[in-house]
Structure formats: structure tokens, C-alpha cells
């Protein structure tokens, strides 16, 4: 027989003003199973909790119902109190008679009746509550970081410096990401490579970081603390352990004229190459599509000239399984490829502003490569079409961004600042040139950001024109840019030598496919979704997976680095414990009733349901049933509502508990 204790809170006057709390206590005291019922001014206060604990001990209570505010407010408080008095915390329930009763009704009689019923329902429910032991899962203290840009590098270094092993996986042949491509960075104009490459070297030299470049995530299984990640190391055709990075192969490679993606296809590279001189690792990769050896079987020069014998044409993709406890996703961004519409993209507006048709209409990243001292022009701003220095240059902001009608409604956040930077870089390099910027608004929140933007206008002579470009066309070797200056209200026409488009920031290609492997959610643009926009900005809803950088939304470098360190801190917090405790609201399978239709498995959003074989003593297969991995289960209960025989039950929300409440109506 239950000995239920019911505690009615006045909440000062918040409840008692409308609800006759003494009456409620008196009425519910009569319910079968209720051994003790009382009311008190503030149940959540120290004396209130003391009252609760004392009653549990003295009245030998088996279950507790606290009728007070919303359980979202104080359920944890009271469960803790109950636990400290020696009862299992899940034998305590709350009846919400404040938010759902006293605050929303004025009629004292009605509110009192309702409160009595609400408490009565919880009394019936709590009778069916079971002792739920806390679930503990072991933690593998190794982290996986996906993406080797600045976000991934920062997260990997922080976690490794804290003493844990890190697996860093990068899709490209070198780490560095977009930051390695940049010339100089706002708002300080320090050289990107100067601050980036030491960090890349740190990664390469770190004893606790294992670096897999030219590798991708094949499969992710498991759950927080216990992931099994399969990494595909694509065939590099060069054995990393043997290669010394001397570069002779690249010098001797007969194919030299392959556009280098790192240089936005402006520079050329051989078929065996490193994307840029400071690449980490400094191990070349053979581009099999363009290599003569792979195309015709002839050549083989690189193998002949390689002293250490590192070139291996037979190398195949390798799959490596890595057990990790936490995952940081830092896959970064890509620029809106305005030139060509990717298959299936819901976004409109491709092919605008002559990009892809007029060679001297380039995007921001291409400008970075032109301005970079290590870029294809050695840092000279030259037109891709004829190599001449542009004397009139037009920058257009918000290309794609903030254009709801075209499908991208967000602000790409970094363009205002980098365009201001571009005008400065241009002014520094082409002293007699003139930069114009078409812009909607200048968005410059950030330390020293607005000062930087003002400087581009006030000291670096950039002309900002508020308004959008209506038309742009080639005329001779000029590009005519027509737009309106809405500040003055006149039409503007500029004969430019070069046009730079600040195209929108988008997630990397394949971001959605990776999210599906990881089981994390993403928005309609494929940016990954954080668990809470404000309070859990670096965690995914899927436990054990964290976000860093622009894969979650457009970000500049300081924000990216901050988030990466925050994600690392979250990982380190997780690794500080040997065992992980989680709320035991998980689904359990009653194997006797399960017939293995696996409807539960089909609807589980977490992939928590596995197939389990039941064998008799002789080892003969009796049946295959479902098994819910408590570490993975999110606790939604969709499985139970779907299960035809109700052979899977969500602890804390069992059919018995719910039906008891309905029957108490």
C-alpha cells in the first residue's frame, strides 16, 4: 500500500490567493493511498524542503506529490530533496497548480476544484511510479573533430592541451580551411597565414592529435561517451610515413596546368601536389583524374624521382574505426556559388551579376587570393582576363544574403567587414585606384569593427553607395555597373575594371549528408542546429556532439575561435568524468511480449533500437526482439505509442501512469 505525502504550496499568495489550499489539502488527504497532506507557505524554501524531508522520515512516506508551480521550475528541486530523505527521486511528482491554475483562473471555487483534481491525478499517477535508478555510461576519453579549418584546429588543440587524445579529420589534403586562403584579416590587418600556419604546425606536432587529412566520415555509430566512428582515408597515392615533403615529385610532374582550387582556380598546380606551400601535412596527393599515370598507365615520373619511395599508385581507400567519446563538428562554410546552381538547391538567383560569364567579376575569396602575397599574382591585384591592374573597382555587398525572394533570408555577417578590408587592401596596393561599394546597410558590431569600417571610408577613400546594383554588363574591356544611390536619390553608373561580389556564406557541400550520419539536426539552409539558441549554443540536441564555427551559422574568425574553444570546454567537461549519469527516462523492451516487428526501430529518431537475438539453452534462436540502448535513447516515447503490443515502455511515462491519470478524471 502506498503512503503518499501531498504538499500544497501557497507560493506566498500566488497560489493561495485563488486556490483554497487548506481545502485542497483536506480533500486530497481523503484519497486512498494518501497518508499525509499538508499545505505550506513556500515549499521550495529551506524550511519547506525541511518539512518535506521530515514528513518522509516520520510518516514513512512511499511517494510524494508536491502541488506548487510548474515542474519545469522546481521538479529538480523537490526530487533532490526527496532523494536526500532517502526516497528515489522518481517517486516524486509535481502538480502544477500555479501556472496552470491559480494564475489563469480568477474564480476561487473553480480554481480550487481544479486544483483538487490536478492533485488527485498526480496522486494516482505517482502510485504507479517506479524506482528508477540513475543510468551511468562509461566515457571514452578521446574526441573526434571533423574539419581542419580554424574552428577544428582550435578545438583540437584545446582538447589535446587538456590532456585528451584527439582525432582530427579533414576532407582536403591539408588542414587550414578557408582561413589559410585569406590575405589579411579584419580588423587588424594581420596576415592570415602568419597567425594560422603556426597553429597548423602545432596540430601536426601535437603528441595527442592524430591527423587524418584527405579523409571523410563514413559512418557514426554509438552515443555520447561511446561513439564508433569509421573514417575513410582516401587513397592519397603517397605514403605519408615515407614522404619527406622534398617536393621533387611536384617539380618533375609533366602535368602542370591544373587550376588550383586553393587559389580559386587562378593559379596552376601539377597532378601531384600540395594545395599550398605551407600545407600540413606537407605530403603531396595525386589527383588521379588528371594524372597521366592513372589516365593512360604511362608516365610514372613521380615514383621514379621519389628518393624515399613514397609514391604508391596502388594505394586504396582505407577504413579506420576510431572509438571516441565526443564529437566536435567544425565543417565550416562555402561561398554561395552564384555562378552555377547546385543540383536540388532551393535557392534562386544563380547566374546574376555576370559571375561566371564576365571574367573580371569575381567573388570575395578570389579577391583574397589576388591580394595574398603567396597567391597566384604574388599579391598584386590584377584582372583575371588580361592581367591589368584595375583602376576602378566595384564591390557589391549582400549578393544572395538578405534576399528572401531568392531563398536566403539571413545576413552572412562577415561581408561588411571583409569588403571594408578589401577596399583597404586595394587602396594599399593600387594607389591611384578608386574603390566603390554598393551596400544596403553596414553591419559592424564587434570590437574595433565600426572604427575599421569608418577608416575604409575616411582614410582609405572608399566610396560607399547605399543602394543595390540593378544592372551590370560588359562594355569593351570595362564592366558597366548601374545602380541607385538611395541616400541621394540618383542613378549611378560606374565603368569598372573589376567587380567583387560579397556572396553569401553557406554551409559546406554535403553538410546535410554528414548531419544524417551524425544524427544531428540542421535548418533549411543546412546550417547545423544548436540545442538552444541562447543557452546551449555549442551543443547539438544529440548528446555528445558539439558545434564550432560557421557550420552552425555565418561567423567571423574571433567568433569561430571562441565557439571552438567553448566546444572544446564542453568536451573537456564531459571527459572530466569517468562515468556519465543521465536521467533514466528511457524506453525499455519487455522481451516476453516483443515479436520483433521493429516498428520501434523504424520510428526511433535516435537510432537507439537494436535487434537482439534470444536463444534457448541449446543456443537455438527463439526470436529476435528489440533492444533499446539506454545510452542513446532520447526518451521521446514515440516507440511506445507505435508498438502494437506495447512491449516497449518509456520509464517515467508508462501506460500505467498515464492511464491512471486519465482514469482519475
Amino acid at each position: 500500500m502506498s503512503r503518499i505525502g501531498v504538499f500544497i504550496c501557497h507560493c506566498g499568495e500566488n497560489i493561495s490567493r485563488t486556490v483554497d489550499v487548506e481545502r485542497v489539502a483536506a480533500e486530497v488527504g481523503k484519497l486512498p493511498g494518501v497518508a499525509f497532506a499538508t499545505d505550506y507557505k513556500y515549499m521550495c524554501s529551506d524550511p519547506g524542503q525541511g518539512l518535506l524531508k521530515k514528513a518522509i522520515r516520520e510518516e514513512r512516506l512511499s511517494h510524494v506529490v508536491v502541488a506548487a508551480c510548474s515542474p519545469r521550475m522546481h521538479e529538480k528541486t523537490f526530487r533532490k530533496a526527496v532523494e536526500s530523505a532517502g526516497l528515489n527521486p522518481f517517486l516524486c511528482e509535481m502538480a502544477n497548480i500555479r501556472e496552470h491554475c491559480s494564475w489563469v483562473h480568477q474564480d476561487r471555487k473553480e480554481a480550487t476544484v481544479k486544483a483538487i483534481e490536478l492533485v488527485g491525478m498526480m496522486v494516482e499517477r505517482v502510485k504507479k511510479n517506479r524506482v528508477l535508478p540513475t543510468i551511468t555510461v562509461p566515457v571514452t576519453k578521446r574526441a573526434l573533430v571533423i574539419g581542419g579549418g580554424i574552428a577544428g584546429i582550435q578545438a583540437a588543440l584545446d582538447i589535446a592541451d587538456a590532456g585528451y587524445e584527439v582525432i582530427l579529420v579533414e576532407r582536403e589534403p591539408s588542414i587550414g580551411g578557408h582561413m589559410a586562403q585569406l590575405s589579411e584579416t579584419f580588423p587588424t590587418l594581420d596576415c592570415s597565414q602568419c597567425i594560422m600556419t603556426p597553429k597548423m604546425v602545432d596540430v601536426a606536432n601535437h603528441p595527442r592529435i592524430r591527423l587524418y587529412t584527405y579523409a571523410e566520415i563514413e559512418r557514426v555509430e554509438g552515443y555520447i561517451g561511446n561513439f564508433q566512428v569509421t573514417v575513410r582515408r582516401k587513397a592519397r597515392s603517397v605514403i605519408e610515413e615515407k614522404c619527406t615533403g622534398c617536393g621533387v615529385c611536384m617539380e618533375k610532374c609533366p602535368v602542370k596546368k591544373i587550376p588550383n582550387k586553393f587559389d580559386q582556380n587562378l593559379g596552376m598546380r601539377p597532378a601531384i601536389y600540395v594545395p599550398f606551400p605551407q600545407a600540413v601535412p606537407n605530403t603531396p596527393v595525386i589527383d588521379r583524374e588528371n594524372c597521366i599515370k592513372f589516365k593512360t598507365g604511362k608516365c610514372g615520373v613521380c615514383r621514379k624521382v621519389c628518393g624515399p619511395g613514397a609514391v604508391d599508385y596502388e594505394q586504396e581507400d582505407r577504413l579506420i574505426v576510431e572509438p571516441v567519446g565526443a564529437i566536435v563538428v567544425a565543417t565550416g562554410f562555402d561561398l554561395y556559388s552564384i555562378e552555377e546552381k547546385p543540383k536540388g538547391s532551393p535557392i534562386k538567383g544563380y547566374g546574376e551579376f555576370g559571375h561566371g560569364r564576365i571574367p573580371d567579376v569575381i567573388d570575395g575569396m578570389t579577391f583574397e587570393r589576388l591580394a595574398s602575397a603567396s597567391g597566384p599574382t604574388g599579391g598584386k591585384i590584377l584582372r583575371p582576363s588580361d592581367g591589368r591592374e584595375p583602376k576602378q573597382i566595384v564591390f557589391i555587398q549582400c549578393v544572395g544574403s538578405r534576399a528572401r525572394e531568392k531563398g536566403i533570408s539571413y545576413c552572412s555577417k562577415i561581408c561588411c567587414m571583409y569588403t571594408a578590408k578589401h577596399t583597404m587592401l586595394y587602396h594599399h596596393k593600387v594607389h591611384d585606384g578608386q574603390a566603390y561599394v554598393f551596400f544596403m546597410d553596414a553591419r559592424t558590431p564587434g570590437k574595433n569593427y565600426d572604427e575599421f569600417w569608418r577608416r575604409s571610408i575616411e582614410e582609405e577613400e572608399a566610396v560607399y553607395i547605399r543602394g543595390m546594383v540593378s544592372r551590370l554588363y560588359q562594355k569593351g574591356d570595362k564592366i558597366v555597373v548601374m545602380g541607385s544611390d538611395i541616400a541621394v536619390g540618383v542613378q549611378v553608373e560606374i565603368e569598372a575594371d573589376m567587380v567583387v561580389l560579397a556572396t553569401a556564406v553557406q554551409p559546406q557541400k554535403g553538410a546535410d549528408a554528414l548531419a544524417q550520419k551524425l544524427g544531428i539536426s540542421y535548418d533549411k539552409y543546412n546550417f547545423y542546429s544548436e540545442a538552444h539558441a541562447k543557452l546551449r549554443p555549442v551543443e547539438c540536441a544529440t548528446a555528445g556532439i558539439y558545434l564550432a564555427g560557421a557550420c552552425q551559422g555565418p561567423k567571423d574568425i574571433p567568433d569561430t575561435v571562441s565557439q571552438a574553444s567553448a566546444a572544446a570546454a564542453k568536451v573537456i567537461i564531459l571527459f572530466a568524468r569517468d562515468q556519465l549519469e543521465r536521467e533514466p527516462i528511457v524506453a525499455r523492451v519487455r522481451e516476453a511480449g516483443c515479436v520483433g516487428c521493429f516498428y520501434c526501430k523504424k520510428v526511433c529518431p535516435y537510432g537507439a533500437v537494436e535487434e537482439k537475438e534470444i536463444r534457448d539453452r541449446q543456443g537455438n534462436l527463439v526470436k529476435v526482439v528489440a533492444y533499446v540502448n539506454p545510452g542513446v535513447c532520447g526518451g521521446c516515447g514515440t516507440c511506445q505509442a507505435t508498438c502494437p503490443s506495447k512491449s516497449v515502455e518509456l520509464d517515467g511515462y508508462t501506460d500505467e501512469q498515464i492511464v491512471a491519470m486519465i482514469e482519475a478524471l
Partner: protein
Amino acid sequence: MHDNPIDTSIYAAVTEAIQGEARRILSEGHVAAVVGYAAARRKGSAQPVVVTRADDAGKLIFSAACVNNLAVYLTKARKEIPKSGKIGIVVKGCDLKALVGLMGESQLKREELYLIGVPCAGVLASTIQPDTALTAGTIAPKCRECDAHLPTGCDFVPARQPVTPELEKHYSAEIARLEAMTPAERWAYWKGQFKKCIKCYACRQVCPFCFCEQCLCDRNKPQMVETTPRPAGNFAWHIVRAMHLAGRCAGCAECERVCPMDIPLNLLNRKMAKELKELYDYEAGFEVREKGPLATYDEKDDQSFIK
């Protein structure tokens, strides 16, 4: 009109072909047993049979009295079926749909079955008088709207083409009739029907999809559905059953055939099938699908009923 005979002349040749194929697969050791129909004692009647020896293959028949859906013998009524080895089974198009559904629900494996499909012009609505001729009046209601006279995807189908006259569709007409009523009228109709229920659970017993070892409706902790055959419990039972069969039932109508109280149970199932077709363009029984319409979703699903 009702006496219009339906041509079942191919059934003799079909019987012969079934016997030949069963004999072959049993003697060659392809299968451990064949589940089919055999003649029963009364003239014209048929009953399910499990044949394990090639010599017994001659027992197998097919006639308009072969009403049973044999799929249940592969799942919950396996008592006479050998535990190991491939099983051959004689299936009409409607029965095959159940097998297909069961494969999607991990209850059967295609590679463990040898399917002998039956070209079927229809079976009798009732076998109380098994020697009745098949006519537009005596044909089972489900056969009136059959879209699977020739089963597809079987291992063997006798090369016969059933002649199938166009018949007035029973369930579609009934559904339309009920849909045109007011809620109160519909309630009265079903109340009258469910009132008759004696909770014998023959519908559950015969249903290939009621394969749960412990039915939700038999549980008492908590008691979701009142078990006694009182109107309230009857109503709940039939609603729960219809919901559990939604998106799964392909209309073998065995529940309706075996119901001793003549409750039009398949009408509920056809209504649900119609709704799921309209909502999610899903029809059960045509291909083995991992997820039925209620085990999956589309972000763009209709939600006009949700405020």
C-alpha cells in the same frame, strides 16, 4: 443480375498445376512443406492442409471454396509447419498482400518461402453451403473490388488468365454511404454493429497482422480496453484494432468472413486504407517496404487539421 455465373473453369487446371509444382518442389527437396488447400469432408468444401510428402501433393486443390488466407500458418499458427527448411505456400493475390506486409514487418523472410500463386477469379463469400456456384451474388465482397487476380512476384504461377467480370464495388459503396451520414447516424450504425460483438476474438485469431504474442487488449496493467463483451469494450476493441491495422491491412477480409456475428469489420479496414491512400499515397501489400505509412513521415505532410 445476382445469378450471373462467374467463370471458374480454370480452377481445375490451376489445381493440376499446383499439384505438379508441389510434387516437384517436395520431391526435389526445395521445400520442407507446402501449405495449401485440400478437399474437406463435405462436398465442395475445402480446408487448409500442410503437405510434407511429394506423394501427398495430389491432395492439393484450388476452388471457389478456398477462402482462407493461409498466411497465418506461417506466423502464429505454425504448429504443423516444419521448423526448418523453406516452406511452399499457395497464395491468392489477396493473401500475397498479407505475406508482403509480413515481410516488411520482419515476420517472414522471402528467401524462406516458395510462393505458388493462384490465378483467381474469386472465392465464395460464405462456405456454409460450400457446393454453391460462384456467381455475382455468392462471390466474396472483397473479390468484387480485387486488383490482384494474378499474383505477381511469385516463384510459380500457373499460366491461366482468370475471367473477371466487372462487379459493383461493395466496400467503396458502403464507405460512401456511411460517409454521407451525419456523425450521429454513423455512431448509431456502428453502435448497432459493435453491440453484436461477443468478443470471441475470431477476427484477431484469423488476422495475419494480429501477430502480437500479447495483445494490448488483453493487458490489465493498465487496462487499455475493457475485455468484457459490453458495448463500451466492444467499441474500443474494434477502434483499436482498426487503428493497429491502418496502413498494414491489405483486405483479405478474413476477419469479416469468420465473424460469427456478421460485423462488417473489413469496412473499417478499407476506410482506413482509403484514407492512407489519400493522405500519403500508400497502398499496402504491393511491395515489401521497410516502413509503412504510420512508421514514417514527410515534413510536408498535410496538417490542415492542426491549428
